[in-house]
Every structure is written in structure tokens, then in C-alpha cells.
């Protein structure tokens, strides 16, 4: 597992710790890296890469590592962008749409309920369709925006991974997470890594990480 660290990332340690909780070793990859060979999963963690200056995720999207992420994704590798990671993936064009200021113009840090909208993805395969997960959000710019045509397409292609049960930020169609056309890139605003430990934030986020691990194992088994 690779966790990409941009200047201003601040959830990389949390992601590392969450995977460690599940017995998985992850390592940090600096934003200057140009090669992601040898990794099974790439995580773009939350935070404020480049201080959210210009637009959130906009500067990080041009980091050298993002070219490598692009190649990694094109080759079918699993890429998950959490919060700022989601914003970076949108800015880099690896996911469609954009994330805008929350409708209430306030930063929001609280647990929200999201519904698993599809289990047909390596990030949600361990969940039950329609399963409600309580996972914290922590963002100022998580208001997902896309054109009506794109929304229809996302719906038709079953690429909406999560929807908010009670829309906290004004996102189009309550969208909390979307998949790439190849279904191997996920962007989500909620922080699954903040919900893996019963003492801190509950364990509902585990299903996302578990799904990824299960998918990897079956992928490897299939290769053999």
C-alpha cells in the first residue's frame, strides 16, 4: 500500500494507523515520486495539500506523483482518494466532477450516515447494498458538483459508491463518493480511516478497507 504525502497532507498517519489496525503495512510515498511499481493500492489521504490555495486539490493535481497515479490507475491499480484526496482526483481528471464550498459555507466535522449505493466495486464489495455506515466527514469543500448529463451517466453506470442519508453539504444527488469508469478509482469525502477503532469513531469504516483487501486477495488468487 502506498500513501501519497503532499505538502499539507495531514491524514497520512491516520490512514497508516487504520491499515495497521487491520494488520496491513502501508508506506508513505513522497509527492515527487514518479514510480508506484510494487504497490497494490494507492491512497491519497485527506488534509490541505498546498494549503487549499488556488482551489482545493488544484496544485497537488500537478505533482509529479500524479502522473504515476494516472499510469497506476490506467493499469487497473486500486486508487482511493479520501477527502482532499478526492478533491485532487477530481482536479487531476481521474474522477469526474468537482468539489465546491459546502452549501452552508461552514467547515463540518461530524459523523454522518452514508448509504452504500453499489457493492460492485473493489471498495464496497464486502458491504451489503444499501448498508448504512456511520463515518465522519471533515471538510469545507465537499459539495459534489457535476452536470445533469454526467449525473445521469454516473447513475446509469452504477458509479455512485455512497450517498449521504442526510445531505450535509449540498452535494448533487446526495453524492458522497464516486467511482471511475473502470471502477478501480474511488473518491469519497467521508474518512473511513476515522472509523476503524471502537474507542475512536466506531468501526463502520472498516468495510471499505476490508473490501479493498478482499478484492486484492481475490485479484492475486485470480492471477495465480
Amino acid at each position, binding site marked *: 500500500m502506498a500513501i501519497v504525502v503532499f*505538502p*499539507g497532507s*495531514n*491524514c497520512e*498517519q*491516520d490512514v497508516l*494507523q*487504520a491499515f495497521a489496525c487491520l494488520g496491513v503495512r502501508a508506506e508513505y510515498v513522497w509527492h515527487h515520486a514518479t514510480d508506484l511499481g510494487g504497490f497494490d493500492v494507492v491512497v491519497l489521504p485527506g*488534509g*490541505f495539500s*498546498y*494549503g*487549499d*490555495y488556488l482551489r482545493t486539490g488544484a496544485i497537488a493535481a500537478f505533482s509529479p506523483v500524479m502522473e504515476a497515479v494516472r499510469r497506476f490507475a490506467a493499469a487497473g491499480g486500486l486508487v482511493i482518494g479520501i477527502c482532499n484526496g478526492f478533491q485532487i482526483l477530481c482536479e487531476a481528471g481521474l474522477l469526474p466532477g468537482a468539489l465546491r464550498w459546502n452549501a452552508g459555507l*461552514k*467547515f*463540518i*466535522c*461530524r459523523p454522518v450516515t452514508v448509504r452504500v449505493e453499489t457493492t460492485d466495486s473493489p471498495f464496497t464489495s464486502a458491504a451489503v447494498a444499501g448498508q448504512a455506515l456511520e463515518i*465522519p466527514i*471533515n471538510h*469545507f469543500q465537499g459539495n459534489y458538483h457535476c452536470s445533469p448529463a454526467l449525473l445521469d451517466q454516473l447513475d446509469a453506470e452504477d458509479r455512485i459508491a455512497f450517498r449521504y442519508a442526510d445531505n450535509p453539504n449540498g452535494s448533487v444527488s446526495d453524492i458522497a463518493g464516486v467511482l471511475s469508469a473502470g471502477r478501480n478509482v474511488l473518491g469519497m469525502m467521508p*474518512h473511513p*480511516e*476515522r472509523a476503524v*477503532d471502537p*474507542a*475512536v*469513531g466506531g468501526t463502520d469504516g472498516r468495510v471499505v478497507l476490508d473490501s479493498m483487501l478482499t478484492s486484492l486477495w481475490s485479484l492475486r488468487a485470480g492471477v495465480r
Partner: protein
Amino acid sequence: MSEAPATVVSLHRQLGLTDDEYARIEEILGRKPNHAELAMYSVMWSEHCSYKSSKIYLRTLPSEGPQVLIGPGEGAGIVEVDGVAVALRIESHNHPSFIEPVQGAETGIGGIVRDILSMGARPIALLDPLRFGPLPVEDTVEPATAERNRFLVEGVVTGISTYGNCIGVPTVGGEVVFDPCYSGNPLVNVMCIGVAPVERIMLARAHGPGNVVLLLGSKTGRDGIGGVSVLASSAFEEGSETKRPSVQVGDPFTEKLLIEACLELIERGVVVGIQDLGGAGICCATSESAANAGTGMRIHLENVPRRERGMEPFEILTSESQERMLVIVTPEDEEEALATCRRWGLGASVIGQVTASGRLEVFEDGVCVADVPAASLGDGPVYYRPVERPHEAPPVPDTDVAPPEDLRRAVLALAGDPSLCSKRWVWEQYDHQVMLGTVTGPGADAAVLRLPGARKRIAVTADANGRWCAADPYLGTCHAVAEAARNLSVVGAEPIAVTNCLNFGNPERADVMWAFSESVRGLGDACTALGTPVTGGNVSFYNETAGRSIDPTPVVGMVGVVADAGPPGTGFRGAGHLIVLLGETLPELAGSEFLRIVHRRQGGLPSLDLAREAALGRVVRGAIARSLLSSAHDCSEGGLALALTESCLAGGLGAAVTPEDGLPVHVWLFSETAGRVLASVEPHRLPALRALAAAEGVPVSFLGTVGGDALRIGSEADIPVAVLRDVYDNALPAAMRHA
């Protein structure tokens, strides 16, 4: 050496130096100071930097204990917990936040975080005790003033959210209190906790002549020239907008890089000494770190990266540009240090060398622009300011306080008061979860945090009560310490250390200085009684507008250690659990929130018995360690009424309680007697709790039973939990909503 300008004698007064202070500077230098030197002394000898009015009192505070690794006088205090160094400190950013609330709050956080960083510690938590004038929903101030207060709340919360969230340090607690005395002078205090391996604690020491002085971080501009002396060391008058040019703008992104780069430098073992740049900028950081090590320093101003053209030497020396640190490294490690900063994209420049001269010598393009004994800048004057006890207001006899016309309405009035209601609107804008260490976050009596590298957890709280300190600064301050300790005990933590932020009016006023001296005496006595050494603190004077001082507001920050068991939580947990009160309710409505909110009267405060407070703490912690309690909640502001309300809401359960015989219901319900904790227990655990309490002489009274969907107070009131929740949760959002 350039010759001093002829006008220099009158200049010193403009810079806030007295004639005596100026004479002392001449004596130290053996000549007249030049402009740059005079500016350096003026900021370093300002109240804010020199503590010249408060020093004699602060010396009296208890500061020792086996757990104390670093006491007062450094960037932050440090205590040892489970083999890990825990750094703690609070600072104020009151005046800057009044001028520009967003940037004032942002730079306040930046400053305290660098204080913690300067000890070699990683910041892991922030708390923000905030005090403002009333919001427009109250009618105690003019509408325009209330509107301005709301603007300040909005701005300060935004600033904390913007900066704290970006640097990835969770904001885990604090206070938000409204009182007319803060209308022209809000209090924006910020507390930070940091951790480090014990062996990696760093100090501001420029050891080793020949070593290299590095300046890290942002470029230097004309930010806050004379800021500390102008903003924090003089009364605040109308028309303060003219001071706007000295407003400093926060850059949380650079701060985040600074945190990571400095910690990496320390981890690499290349740091000889490290010091933050805050008030008085380069001048303060260089002179302090040299003086602390008994060395000197030669600084070359042309090597200081600048943001603006044409800056004078004194401007570069005293600029308060944010997000900068001073790091001392050996010449051998210079390249490694610079490369590390480059990797983080952080500016770093060699600006000078450590010398053996004991002097701070400043050059610009080869010309000496200042040359002073380094230690003399930090060795400012000490004042014994006049102290005079003001006339006392007659105490309010409790027998005088009539019962409310409608008990239910009174309970709801408290639950919906902006100072007492839920602060969720505020803390949901703060990232309180990052770092995955927040076991109990904002909204609880105290935050409980995991301690990286240790098995034990720590708990943190910050408490104050300005109205009580106005009534009696000695006893009021003792109460603040006692309440902080109680807040820690109810989450199972044993208090081990205190830091403080003493917010007062003009020290040149004898009544203010009397209140200050009494407050410090109270702080010392209470901390001695409760075994919590004072590891440092901050004094903020001149909190007044148009000649009116704020209430004396000493904010007590306290850290405790949680051994094993998790906190029971504030909320009732199960129907049928028994509700008990640990401690005794006395008829003490003086100074109560009931008196303020329902009767609109102020004055007075409850009594305090520190020995009983300590015994209560032992009982509560013992009961939590033995898992006897289902819930525990500090019973203080708002009395039992608010404690019951909050325990019902946090647990989503109702309760039925019976008023105590011998006290009128409203006295029993609203009295704010100290030394009380509201708890709930499973019935079979009550005997064990009683035995534990009896051994310490702490009374346990049975109040009632958890259950149902309403708070039932005898036959007097029956309030659905849903109604309480609506009032308690929505009061602040409603008050902050624009018409």
C-alpha cells in the same frame, strides 16, 4: 556604529519606554542607543515580553513536582506521563482578534503551536477558551454592539477552523462564554498540548560559538511592527482601526511545513537549539537563545529574506511576521538542515553565527546597526505596581432570591442561554478527530486523548469564571482551579499540571493590580492544595476599552493522567440506573447562572473547601477506576438543573429526581456549590460507591432514577427530553443566524 538621531530622547516615550527605562538602557550601553537599539529595548521591555508588572507575583507560584520536567520560563511547560514528555501552554490573542477576528485567531493558534514546537514536541491538541460580549438574542447591550459581537464570534471561530484544521492538529475542547464585560475586548485564548520522547526535548539555547543561526519559514515583512508593545501593552481605545496595518495574516500551510520540517530536523539530530519567533521577532529569538546559553550572536540582516522593499533594520529585527522559527545547527550539519527544509519546500537561510561575546551584534551589509548585551534585552525592568483593594459590593444574601414563577421555564432559560447551551455549532467547525487520538472530544467535561508512545491517556481542560473573579479574585481563581480538577476527575483523570492565561485590565490601575495579585495568590494556593504545579503561563494585561476593564479572567488549563478505565461519559446510560450526587448542596445562589439569567442580578460567589474538593476527586477517580459509575458529570455552572439536563441529553434518556428535603426546590436545583459531581450507577454498585465515598468523608445523596423520556423534577416540573434538546441544541445556531 551609526550615530543616534538627535530626537532620540523624545522617541523613547513614543516607543512606550519611560524615562527611567531609557536611563537604564544608556547605563547598560554606556552610550545613547541608536534607533534600532531603542526599538529593540522597547519591544523586549514591553509588558507583553518582559512581564515587568507580573513577575514578582508569578515567582510565588508552586512549580515543582516529580512529574515536572520543564517549569516556567521556557516556551512551554513539560511534564512526564508514562515516559513521554507532554508540553502544555496557553496564550492570549485578545487584541489582534478584536481588530481582525479571523486573522487574530489564526495567528494566535500559529503562535502557540510554535511555542510547543520550540520544545521539540509535536502539537497534538488545541483548546480554545473564548469570551465575547452578548449576542443579539440578549438585550444586555446595544443592538449594534451585539451585532459586532456576533461578527467577532463568527470570525474567531472561522479563524480557528481555518488554521487548526489545515495544520492537522485537532481542536478538542475549550469554552465559549458571553458576558457584557467582553463586548469591547473579547478574550481569545489558545491552549496547545504537545508530545515528545523525553530525550528529545529541545530548548532555546544557542550553544557553541561558531554554530550557525538559521531562520526558517516565511519571509519577513512589516507585519506587526511594534505589535506586542502596541497591541498587548496599551489600553484599547476607539479608532483602533488605524492600527490595522500591523495586522498579521496567518499562513497555516507554511506552519504545517514548519512543524514537519522542524520535527524532522530534531529527529535527524542536527538541532543544537530551537526558538520560535513570536512577539518581537528576530530580536527576541536571537537575544533569548544567546542569553539562555551564555553566548552571543552576530546577525546579518541582508541575509533575512524579505517580503517588502526598503525595510529599516529595526523593522527587520522587530517584525512579527508569522510562521518563522530560529534553529541553531553546527556548521557540519548546515547543509543537511538546509536540504531538509528544501525537501519540505520551506524557506531557510543562514542569518548569523553564535559567538562567545555575550553580545547581540547586528550588521546590515557589513555595517553594525546594533550592538547590545544579549541578556540585557530579556532582563527587563521589574515593577512593584501600586495595589489597592477596591470598594466591595455588598454580597447578595441567598435568602433574598425568590423562586422563579415557573420552574420549567427557568430550567429551559438556562438550557438555552448562549453561555450554557450546546457549543456544537462552534466545535463542529473544528477538526477534532485528526490524529485518531481523540477518545473524548469537545462537548464533554474534559477531552481525553491517546498519548502517542504511551499506554496511558491524558485528559485536558481549560476553565475560568470571570464573574466570580470579579466578586472575589482570590476565591474565584481557586474555583477555576477546582473546577478544572473536577472536570478531569469526572473523566477518570488525576490532575498533574497547570498552565494559565491571566487576562486582566490595565496594570497601572491599583485596583486591577490588586485583583491580579489576589488571583495569583488563589492560583498558587489552589494548585498547592490539589497537587498541580504551575508549569508556566501567559499574562495578558490592558484588556480594557474606553477605561472599562474586563472582569479579571484567569483561565486555568489543566492536564491529567487517565490510568486505565475509559471515561464513563457525561450521559445517562441505562433506564433504572440510580442518579446520585457526590458532595453536598448548600444554599448558594450567589453568583449563580440562575441569578444572572432569571433574576438578572450579579454578584457574590459560592464558598470553596479545597480539601473536600481533593477528597471528591479521589472518590470519583477511584469509582471510575473500579468501573462503578455509569456516568459522571461536573456539577457547576447552572447547578443541578444544567448537569441533569446535559446528562439526559448526552444519554438520550429521561430522569426522575426528587428535591432534597430542607432546601427550597429552586435553591437545590440552581445552587452552584462547588465540590459536586452528578453520577449514575447501576443499583448493585451503589453500596461499593457509598463505601468508597464514606472513606473520604464525601456525602452521597440519592436523587432519583434514570428512565423515561422527560426530566421530572419532583412534582414541580416535567420537561420532555426532546424539548430540552431543542432548546439546548438550537440556542447558539439561532443566535448566530443572521436576521
